[in-house]
């Protein structure tokens, strides 16, 4: 089977004052469709940067990156954006819901950027509200929700466009343990339903939900371990 993600010798470097600072060094890895992978490592290891590159939010790197067989490194910005819009959903530690929009509107946003017709958008949003059991919250603004509820909406927003891949950066970092567990269970179910997931986390407990843990340090991939004792 063709890997969903294939990175070869990926490097990212900052230049400042004539010196080079490597954020990622010769990263090569493969992630299969349906896989749940965790990036771990100390602060400054390059985890979030790698996540941004995989999510195609960052285009300044060298090396090769294939997404579902498409050579991302050869695509122009427009094509990359299209690939990103069509296949990737994001979940953030701080939820990053848009304050001025209701829950319904927050969920509608990614669909509108994909030019999904209005009727279809409404139908999809209603489905997801139902699926995530948040129909009653649809007219509330983010500041009227608890942290867990906000992250639930954040995940729903990532899922609504049926992405092949969900990228989650410390998705439970701002939640207490019960809420965190609820979100991780949600990820597990989504993964079981076929969505690939990559998360960045410091939590061993969250890492236990993934099939594989990739350790990064100073920009290098230092280890890869399969997770025999995966939750679920």
């Amino acid at each position: 089977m063709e890997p969903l993600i294939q990175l070869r010798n990926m490097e990212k470097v900052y230049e400042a004052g004539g010196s080079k600072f490597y954020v990622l060094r010769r990263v090569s890895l493969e992630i299969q469709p349906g896989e749940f992978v965790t990036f771990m490592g100390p602060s400054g290891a390059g985890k979030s940067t790698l996540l941004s590159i995989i999510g195609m939010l960052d285009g300044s790197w060298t090396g090769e990156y294939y997404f579902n067989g498409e050579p991302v490194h050869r695509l122009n910005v427009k094509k990359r954006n299209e690939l990103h819009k069509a296949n990737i959903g994001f979940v953030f530690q701080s939820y990053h819901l848009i304050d001025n929009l209701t829950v319904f509107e927050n969920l509608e946003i990614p669909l509108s950027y994909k030019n999904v017709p209005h009727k279809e958008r409404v139908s999809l949003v209603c489905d997801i509200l139902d699926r995530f059991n948040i129909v009653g919250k649809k007219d509330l603004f983010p500041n009227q929700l608890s942290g867990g509820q906000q992250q639930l909406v954040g995940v729903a927003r990532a899922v609504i466009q049926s992405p092949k891949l969900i990228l989650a950066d410390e998705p439970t970092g701002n939640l207490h343990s019960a809420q965190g567990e609820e979100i991780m269970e949600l990820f597990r179910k989504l993964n079981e339903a076929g969505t690939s997931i990559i998360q960045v986390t410091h939590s061993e407990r969250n890492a236990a939900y993934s099939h594989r843990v990739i350790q990064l340090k100073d920009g290098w991939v230092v280890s890869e371990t399969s997770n025999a004792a995966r939750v679920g």
Partner: protein
Amino acid sequence: MADLLRDMRYALRVLLRSPGFTAVAVLTLALGIGANTAIFSVVNAVLLRPLPYPESNRLVYLGEWSEQVPEMSISMANFNDWRAQNTVFESMVGYQSDNVVLTGRGEPERLRLRRITAGFFPTLRVRPILGRELTPEDDKVGAAPVVLLGEGFWERRFGRDPRIVGQQLVLDQQSFTVIGVLPSRLHGSLRQMDLFTSLWRLEDELGGESNRGSHPGIYAYARMKPGVTVDHARAEMKSIARHLDELYPQSNGDDSVVLQPLLDAIVEDVRPSLLVLMGAVGFVLLVACANIANLLLARGVERHRELAVRIALGAGRWQLVRQVLTESVLLSLAGGMLGLLLAVWITAALVRGTPMGVPRMDEVSADRSVLFFTFCLSIVTGVVFGIFPALEASRADVQETLREGGRTGTAGGGRRRLRDFLVAAEVAVSLVLLVGAGLMAKSLFRVLQADGGINPANVLTARLSLPDAKYNDDAKRRNFVSQLVLKAQSLPGVEAAGYKNPLLGGAQNAYVIEGRPLPPPGRLPSADISRVSPEAMPVMGMRLLSGRYFDDHDNENTQHVCIIDETFAKQNFAAGDVLGKRIYSGGPPPAGQEPDWLTIVGIVAHVKNYGVDQPSRVEMYVPEAQRPAGGGSIVVRSAAATDPAALTTGLREAIRSLDPDIPLYEFRPLEDIVNENTASRRLSVLLIGSFAVLALLLAAVGVYGVMAYMVTQRGHEIGIRMALGASQREILEMVFRQGLRLALTGIAAGLAGAMALTRLMSNLLFHVGALDVPTFATGALALAAIVLLACWLPARRATRVDPIVALRYE
């Protein structure tokens, strides 16, 4: 469309969530858009709106031209030849303006009359609303006198009585039959007319075919045939005039034709100042835009997270720009709506404050063009101030912004440079306005300081006209005027009284100096001639430079005399060799008879009759007693303790005792008449000055905003500096240095801009160069001072940063 509506809904929500920002922005925009809309209302009504006639672009105005008098009235014979020989006009009609006195219907009333040739209103494509038009049968010598009424006069005097047609009106002692009423849908000067009557009925008095050299105040309108251009029409008319010059060299000389579109002829004098005003008020809006853009940029920092999330969710750059632009356009539309209300108020004040003589001001209104202009201006304004923040926002660094703990509240170098640029641009534009206003104000000061040749203080004037039918010989006219002056002089509170015709300026007459060779035909010099009673010149404060004023001995039985002005003397005579010289006035002396020579008995200072900033012609004065005429002005100097206006009743009674059918009208202090010449200039100074002050305030707020923001952003740095031992003075210097850098950049650009742009207003300046160094320097210094003042509050706040508090937050 659905997306646009959604963007608008979100934008509205965003704006309502920041009521303070929204209110400041909307108010700033309302001021800018409102001022622009108000000035545009005037520009639209005066310069742009077509005249209220079908196909008015085919209407042209015609006058005669000669080297000495670039624009003069058309002689009757020339008019007839122009009309007969041209192939470019569908029709060509003539007119002449006059005043008549209506009697026999209560108080005598002076009315404004226009004599017109038959076909005048059909040429304009205007039909009477009542009765009939003037026919060729009405418009010839010997025809029964008929008159058409203006709608305004019909309403005011006859309450729109339809039975007025067929009734008789006694005008200047002659009975006229009313044949119709014209609609008020006419352009300004025509709409102000009370009456219209036949012109050619007076053919004999107008010089007739025989006197081609006489220019009796006739001008012409014509309607060009379809497809004929103004250039084509002008070329043909000039060719006809050249041909007439060859046929009649004695009377025509090198005369030619003035032909211009009717609208241009009406508004050409006010076009430059209106365009300068439009430019100035546009600058105010630019400054307002820069201010709002700066506010949006500052807010952009706060909104970066939202925009980064949108990018992460798949928003394209255009979609982000569209979202941010929707907000700015919504803001400016709100500003536009408020501005429109403001404009209604400003426009009304403008119309009230505009001096008489500015054409078409009575047509100013907020029509569809104005609404469309305001709408478009609002949209463009929203795009102009929104585009920089929108583009800047669309470049949000997603990874950096969304990363937990990443920088979300600091201004990047690009954004800071953009904000600095906008503030420097505000300073620059404000300086251009300030210098423009300064130059205009200095011109006004010079105008007010200039010697106009008369002393108008404490002088009251009033006009009268003597109907030819009753005052049909010189003796009657002479007698009436001398008695009126005597009665006026005897009124309590009157120091002296006189009579002058006309009050300012004079009828242009060609003259010949005795003993000098006769210039070629058409090259005779000319002078403004006015008739004065002996007391008029001292009453009006006209300074005698040599010789004497007229006295009672200068009458019909004595040697004919004249007084000339100093310009006349300098142009024609050696110094000290003027008095006693003789002049003939009224064209070349008649062959075969002794000319009516006028002996020069005095020289007076030159009078700037049309305003000290306007060109004036050489002047000659003759005694009223030696050349009595049918109308003029009584001039009365009041005793020091008397208000000139208080003399009105006495003067009315004086004239009524002489002839109850002669009204005195237009009672006005001479000072008001003189000031009227500067009123338009004063209004321009007031407006441009207000715009400059507004721009200056906005720029000061802009500088304050940027500096305050800088102090907030660099609070940590300031804390470190203070912890390392920086004194308050050094911190103050640091802030002021940045402010000064912005000010100097803006001032340098502003000076360059002002040097380029003030040239465009050089024809509005008076005795001040467009590059007047003191004005430029004063403007720059004033602006620098205000910018530094705007820096002072943030600078003071910077010195109060507590290093411990500032560093604790790190």
